[in-house]
């Protein structure tokens, strides 16, 4: 009884903490100056329609670099905790013929769609994270449908390392080519035409590298969760 009372009091306290936020909140009617500055420099400086991508990749690029690091550490942690004890294949039931053929026909289409999402991150909604997850779901389809499907771990690790190194190299290239204070500045490539694929500096390349990295990391998370450290 006393436990329920304490829980109730704790929840009430948390609710009270949010009370001023909810009560004094009024929906703003125009952008604040920071967002205004981001929007105008995204359009004029970088020639990029999607302002969210401009913030994620360019203005707050250091956050994204840190986030990719967090994702990498979490993946490494999952892989370490659920590592396979011996290398025997664990028993799984074989999917039926229709399922296997349908999956192996659909998975490449899903992966091409993921590539489309992250190469057009600067033009339309979407980007590296979403595209990477779509690619990982294609891999998941293959893992679920085909018993004998073991996506090459070497390929996955190669893609992951290559895209990680490429991302840092892109960041350093800005430092070398533009100036001392321009880590992660994508403006060393030409701005390009409005609404064309090769535009807004190096942003499409950086976002593609992020997409490949997220996709390969989530694929290896799925693989670790699937084997689950069977003895």
């Amino acid at each position: 009884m006393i436990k329920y009372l304490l829980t109730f009091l704790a929840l009430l306290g948390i609710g009270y903490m949010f009370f001023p936020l909810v009560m004094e909140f009024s929906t703003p009617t125009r952008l604040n100056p920071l967002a205004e500055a981001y929007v105008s420099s995204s359009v004029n400086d970088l020639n990029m329609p999607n302002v969210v991508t401009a913030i994620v990749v360019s203005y707050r690029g250091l956050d994204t670099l840190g986030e990719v690091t967090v994702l990498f550490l979490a993946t490494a942690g999952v892989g370490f905790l659920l590592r396979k004890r011996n290398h025997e294949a664990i028993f799984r039931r074989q999917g039926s013929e229709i399922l296997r053929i349908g999956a192996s026909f659909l998975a490449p289409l899903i992966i091409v769609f993921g590539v489309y999402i992250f190469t057009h991150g600067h033009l339309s909604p979407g980007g590296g994270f979403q595209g990477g997850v779509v690619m990982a779901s294609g891999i998941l389809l293959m893992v679920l449908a085909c018993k004998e499907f073991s996506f090459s771990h070497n390929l996955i690790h190669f893609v992951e390392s290559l895209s990680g190194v490429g991302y840092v190299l892109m960041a350093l290239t800005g430092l070398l080519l533009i100036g001392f204070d321009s880590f992660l500045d994508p403006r060393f490539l030409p701005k390009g035409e409005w609404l064309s694929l090769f535009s807004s500096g190096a942003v499409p390349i950086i976002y593609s590298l992020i997409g490949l990295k997220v996709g390969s990391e989530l694929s290896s998370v799925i693989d670790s969760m699937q084997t689950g450290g069977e003895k």
Partner: protein
Amino acid sequence: MPNLFALILLAVLSILAAIYAVLTKKTLNAVIASGIISLSASIIYLILAAPDVAMTEATIGAGLTTVVFLYALKHVKGGEDD
């Protein structure tokens, strides 16, 4: 106005699903309910004019998180231990 109606509907749906996720006896049902919360949240983001966030929430929150939970449930034999 139809947007407001949809918002109310989705907000109520997500809160009901959250309460169900807490109160239900079966862990599997709780996992599916948390997937429903993420899905309705992603439609709310779409109505609030944040399509990037909506895409991310739909793919990650409703898709991959549920799959990861289900794989985990497979390894803890359903997880009915409450």
